[in-house]
């Protein structure tokens, strides 16, 4: 199937359309999306260079990770989207198996036992893979059922989402579990689940949250919630990060203090300035204009993602593309809202800007899937 696909594509090489267009189709690439991603990556490296005090090592490493990500993206894009639909259940089950394996032989890093050290493979987190396997499976499941989904289908979708999420929570990695669950939930939302159910579920969550806070929440989680409402209840402890980050953002003003002149970050007042709180560095040095520029880049990528979902040739493609795009948005928004004090602190990096490893590769897998979906959809249109 892949070969056929390739041959069909290659015939378009001599089409009257522009050569670049042809080349991009040959490589199963979506040029606007690629440009958006490359701009984000470049901007990210620029900020990272300042945030890490010009440490060439950090920036080089990030550039290498991004290059690997791009290669992975191209590889993923070469697969026809049908391949993923066909293999979704098998891949999902394999992913679940890895998650279970982690429970037994996983390695612990930063308190989360989520890493797998298999001989002959680089160290990786199976939970990262689930970030695209879960929406893939739910999309596969719902796309072959009539939409909007009925209760039975919703129930099975929930099982598909909650099973891996539960396993990841057991690994003590709540953040990733939430992301995995959200990626599945986005599929269900896009599949047309009735609003009454959505609203009921939302209200149920609201009602359940006090109980969660009282009986289930861990001490540091409670602290984060309390700190969100009043950062100054512990200004040198739990509230320190958010206070310093707000000072950095606020003091940046409209135009910023200039590249490399962020006192807050360069004098080490912002903790984790090159990971979770990198937005504060950007906001301090480039001001409101810099942040709005970044939001513009993100919006460009997001709306290209929405366009790809919109023009998907089948329900599976559409659901998957929509979910990937919304998950990406979720990442971006949660980080920005957290750093600017709009949400409680959750340890999430800012996609393509923060320093990161496997999570960055996962993002590129998602972009690869988007490109695969789009280039395959386009073939049918022409």
């Amino acid at each position, binding site marked *: 199937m892949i070969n056929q696909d390739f041959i069909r594509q290659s015939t378009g090489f001599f089409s009257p359309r522009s050569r670049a267009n042809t080349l991009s189709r040959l490589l199963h690439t979506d040029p606007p999306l690629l440009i958006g991603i490359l701009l984000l990556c470049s901007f990210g490296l620029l900020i990272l260079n300042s945030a890490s005090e010009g440490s060439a090592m950090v920036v080089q490493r990030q550039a290498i990770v991004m290059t690997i990500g791009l290669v992975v993206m191209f590889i993923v894009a070469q697969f026809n989207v049908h391949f993923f639909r066909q293999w979704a259940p098998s891949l999902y089950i394999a992913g679940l198996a890895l998650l279970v394996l982690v429970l037994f032989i996983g390695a612990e890093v930063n308190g989360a036992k989520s890493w797998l050290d298999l001989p002959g493979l680089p160290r990786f987190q199976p939970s990262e893979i689930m970030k695209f396997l879960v929406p893939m499976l739910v999309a596969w499941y719902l796309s*072959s*059922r*009539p*939409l*909007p989904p009925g209760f039975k289908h919703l129930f099975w979708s929930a099982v598909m989402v909650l099973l891996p999420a539960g396993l990841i929570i057991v690994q003590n990695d709540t953040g990733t579990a939430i992301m995995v669950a959200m990626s599945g939930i986005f599929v269900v*939302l*896009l*599949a*047309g689940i009735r609003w009454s159910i959505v609203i009921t579920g939302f209200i149920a969550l609201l009602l359940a949250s006090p109980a969660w806070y009282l009986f289930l929440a861990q001490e540091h989680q409670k602290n984060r919630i309390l700190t969100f409402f009043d950062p100054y209840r512990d200004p*040198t402890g739990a509230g320190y990060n958010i206070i*310093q980050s*707000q*000072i*950095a*953002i*606020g*003091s*940046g*003003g*409209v135009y910023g203090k200039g590249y490399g002149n962020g*006192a*807050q970050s*360069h*004098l*080490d*007042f912002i903790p984790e300035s090159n990971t979770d709180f990198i937005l504060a560095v950007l*906001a301090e040095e480039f*001001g*409101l204009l810099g*942040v*709005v520029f970044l*939001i513009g880049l*993100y*919006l460009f990528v*997001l*709306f290209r993602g*929405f366009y790809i*979902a*919109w023009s998907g040739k089948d*329900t599976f493609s*559409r*659901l998957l593309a*929509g979910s990937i795009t*919304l998950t990406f*948005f979720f990442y971006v*928004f949660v980080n*920005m*809202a957290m750093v*600017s*004090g*709009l949400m409680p602190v959750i340890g999430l990096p800012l996609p393509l800007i923060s320093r990161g490893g496997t999570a960055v590769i996962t993002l590129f897998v998602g972009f690869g899937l988007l490109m695969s979906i789009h280039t395959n959809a386009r073939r049918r249109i022409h």
Partner: protein
Amino acid sequence: MAGKWQLKDHEAERRIFNRRLVVAGTFVFLLFMALVAKLINLQVVQHEYFSARSDGNRLHSQYVPPARGLIFDRAGRLLADNQPIFNLTVVREQVGDLDETLAFISELINLSDDDIEQFRTRLQRNRVPFSSVPLRYVLTDEEKSRVAVNSHLLPGVAIEPQFVRHYPLASLTAHSVGYVSEINRRELDSLNDEERENYGGTNHIGKTGIERTYEDLLHGKVGYEIVEKNNRGQVMRRLDRTDPVAGKNLTLHLDSRLQIAAEKALGKYRGAVVAIDPATGGILAMVSKPGFDPNLFVTGISSKDYSGLITDQVNTPLFDRTTNPYPPGSTVKPFLGLAGLQHGFVDYDFAIEDPGYFRLPGVSYRWGDYTLRTAIGGGHGHTDLQKAIFQSCDTFFYDLGNRMGIDTMHSFMSQFGFGQNFAVDIDYARTGVLPSREWKRATRGEPWYPGDTINSSIGQGYMWATPMQLATAAAIMANKGKVVQPRLIKATDGVPYEPEIANPVPDVVVEDQDYWRYIQESMTMVVHRPYSDTFRDYGTAFEAIAQADRDMAYTMAGKSGSAQVVGISQEILSSEDIEVSDLNKDHALFISFAPAMNTQIDPQIAIAVFVENGEHGSSVAGPIAKAVTDAYLLDILELDFAAMKEKELQEAEAAEAAKKEAEAARLISQSDD
């Protein structure tokens, strides 16, 4: 699978999905708008507030302590300077868990419980937030590097260079120059707002001696600087600076060579030497032995060292013997003799027949001659005032004192500074006691008895004087009544400095200037009158001074004294360090000035020597005074007495020749008539 596809309404599904996509897109847009609204609030609305917070984070106004003025001796030799040390300091606000940090530091470097305790005391003082508090002074190079290597684990902990006081002569200047030490709570509270501001960057303050008296001059004026600090409190940049004004350098009258000589002359004894320049009142030497190392106090004396200093009841190194009173004994006799002449109780021809004791009319009690107590019996025989001074005849003074009465004695003696502190810049010097009727009534609630006068007339009983007072009195005697008030300060920043004298003292005036010559001559005889066939006709200090040094180049006037030891505590008596019999021995005293009776040069040095349990004024304290005088006149001033003597002879010859010539001229003119 294909069957299921056919059941689906693809167009309807697409519509549902697309609607949802539009909703999602709208949400995305709205949420981003909310984010932008929040950012506008932070970056535009609250921009000024956060800018100020950011500056408050990084900009710190800190004090720049002024360099403390140096202290020099009269020849420009350093008595106190400032040396760089490296301290480990802590900014409390930047340290998370203090106990944990302290525990970690004590793994790296030697940190005693004492250090930690003192550090906690410092923390509790009023202080500016985010100011650094010293944890340990004087880090070695190795300790510095150990801390530096681990600095990333020690937020809020820094190594700061600091200049601290150093006293090169150590114990030699412990009581005169004094020392600085950390400002304590009480001292801080006693400062007014302006002063407190001025001490913002200063850790140390003068505690004793010159360091305390001239704290205002030595301290200088604090400077300020605005620095940018990072999150670990390290200074990254200096942005603005107002330089501090260094304290004034002080030059003292002290001569460190004389100070060394005096300390050496005291030898194994505990005691004090005060030497004064009679022309100016400048204190040339001020030694209390044993001393202590004042450098120990600068960076916080350990409790072990401190208890060592305060529990030594015999040596009492912290006790300043130069400014604390003892019974002056016979050293007061020249002054009483002068009082007798001035008030007409004696004249040059007056003499008594001394039986060796004195008895008040109608009272059977005999006041024995203290001087002769241990020697063979009998008195001094025919004794005039001169002999009473060089032989130190108690009986003569018992009689004189008795006739003079305490009121005359008190008013005359007080002109020489007894019972008062004449010193200009040694406000902590004790006044001793010059007893009077009022004094006794006020302190004892008893009337004055005639017997009290008799005890006082040989410098015993209620009379107490400090070595500083005795040296001052000797200087006034050397000056023939011109009063000089002792002072340590000579110049500030090289400019002669005249300290403000709150209550100037008038000179001592006597009816006949020859009285001065007479008393000075008597005091010279104490040192120089040799043994002869006449019974008890030698100076008491002749053997120990003039006979011991037959080539003595100059003439010295002196007076010995000894004082009974009073009130030894049981604690000292039970001490095993020293034989108790030694502690019961009399204190030995000697006052002197030199050169005396010299037509070429005025007296250059007046001295009081006090030797604790020295027993013999003449033979123990006398040679010490001689050694100090030698050091000053011969080694330091390098006076050429042989040349002076020659000149004196030439002048005498010239005067003789002139006289002869005048005589001849008179005869010629007579014959012409």
